[in-house]
């Protein structure tokens, strides 16, 4: 790799111009957002940040699980575990301020702690199969839409259909499992210190298991070396822009940044999650076509990304968060020269995206969240359901790998 000359500086500088223009446009949108939801502007900006992080580091939760089984490496899973550790510490500080004495105050507000039961396991299995078959999870589909992937638009439609099917069978699941489940929030068992220590120890054990698994499956290779910066001021600035805006970030940088964004979102209101908002779209569309599922038991009392009833203002902070993820990814892809409208060339890829999406939507209904809400926000919430979902997700991803191995 050569050091950037004046010639190779042109590309990063052009990327900086695109990024600057995108920031100005983002600020303009924030200024005209309706004032009905005062958090809409803040969540729009945080969503943009999450979209940039996901796009730049290609932090795909589907590949985090899938690649362990398919290729025997855990580059992205190690990054996810690092991000979970960051979020765990941040969430614990925040939750201990909101509920200083868990034994007296109960579960911290907005923590992603949901009743345990067979629905979490079934939800994780379905979501795991779906994300591998579709080639991306819910947040993955959002950021890929921003990069121009048509298949991800199809997957998102599938997710909305799956959420609709989930809503129509919700009350049966409520009676059979969800309504009978018990919320296990670790600080209620042994205080924050023990809960954080146990969570970090489990994350460390997970990290070691991934390294052991990689070693067993072959020699793990370090990440590719980054280009050397030049000596002149212009070359050094160009080099810094190059590693930030043009080249993909090391996965672990993305994982840690996503963990930090999750803490910021919780400080602002609630942990990171996208399916609650997607369910609002799904329910709203069902109401429009006269196929409303009717009253759903318990959803107003459940945390995480439980189904959200339609109604209320159209522009909310959860909408701006989701749209922000798409827009942030699009801005990052445009700056890097990676944006391109991509149509799958084989018809079966559309079927995979739609079918995988439906499985994800139904699974996310039962587990009250996707890889973000039910996993990346649930484990740092010090909730046992996050670990149960993670185990089911891994098993589902393994099943999904068996499926895609048979689809050429």
């Amino acid at each position, binding site marked *: 790799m050569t050091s950037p000359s004046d010639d190779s500086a042109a590309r990063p500088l052009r990327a900086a111009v695109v990024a600057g223009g995108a920031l100005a446009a983002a600020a303009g949108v924030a200024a005209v957002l309706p004032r009905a939801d005062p958090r809409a502007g803040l969540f729009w900006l945080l969503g943009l940040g999450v979209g940039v992080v996901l796009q730049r580091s290609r932090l795909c939760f589907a590949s985090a699980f899938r690649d362990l089984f398919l290729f025997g490496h855990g580059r992205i899973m190690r990054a996810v575990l690092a991000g979970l550790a960051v979020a765990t510490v941040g969430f614990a500080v925040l939750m201990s301020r909101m509920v200083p004495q868990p034994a007296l105050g109960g579960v911290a507000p907005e923590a992603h702690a949901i009743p345990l039961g067979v629905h979490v396991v079934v939800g994780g299995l379905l979501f795991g199969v779906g994300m591998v078959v579709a080639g991306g999870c819910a947040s993955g589909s959002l950021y890929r839409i921003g990069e121009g992937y048509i298949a991800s638009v199809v997957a998102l439609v599938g997710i909305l259909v799956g959420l609709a099917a989930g809503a129509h069978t919700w009350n049966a699941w409520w009676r059979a499992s969800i309504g009978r489940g018990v919320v296990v929030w670790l600080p209620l068992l042994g205080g924050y210190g023990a809960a954080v220590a146990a969570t970090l120890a489990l994350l460390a054990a997970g990290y070691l298991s991934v390294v052991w698994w990689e070693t067993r499956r072959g020699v793990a290779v370090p990440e590719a070396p980054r280009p050397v910066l030049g000596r002149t001021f212009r070359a050094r600035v160009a080099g810094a822009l190059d590693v930030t805006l043009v080249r993909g970030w090391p996965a672990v940088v993305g994982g840690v940044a996503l963990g930090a964004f999750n803490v910021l979102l919780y400080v602002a209101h609630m942990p990171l999650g996208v399916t609650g908002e997607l369910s609002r779209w799904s329910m709203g569309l069902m109401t429009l076509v006269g196929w409303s599922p009717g009253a759903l038991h318990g959803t107003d009392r459940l945390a995480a990304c439980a189904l959200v009833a339609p109604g209320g203002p159209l522009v909310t902070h959860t909408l701006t968060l989701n749209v922000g993820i798409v827009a942030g990814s699009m801005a990052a892809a445009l700056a890097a*020269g*990676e*944006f391109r409208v*991509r149509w799958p*060339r084989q018809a079966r890829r559309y079927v995979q995206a739609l079918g995988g999406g439906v499985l994800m939507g139904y699974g996310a209904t039962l587990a009250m969240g996707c890889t973000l809400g039910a996993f990346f926000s649930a484990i740092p919430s010090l909730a046992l359901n996050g670990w149960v979902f993670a185990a089911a997700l891994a098993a589902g991803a393994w099943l999904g790998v068996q499926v*895609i191995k048979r689809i050429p």
Partner: protein
Amino acid sequence: MKLDVRGEICPYPMSKAVDALGTLPEGEALEVLTDHPPALETIPFYVVRLGYRCVVEEDGPGQWRIRITRADSSDPS
């Protein structure tokens, strides 16, 4: 040997590249044409483990060529 995996998303660019390496004649290079940015991280990372080296070149907006050769070959690329 050329492999066009444009339009394909993970894991197909990588799994098809690995399959193609299995049928690659001795001394030849494999050129993978892709429009999937994650493949720029996954393919180099993985093929090095299999004893190959590779070079990524841009081939228009949002499109790349990944040239893969055996690590012990004399091909300078």
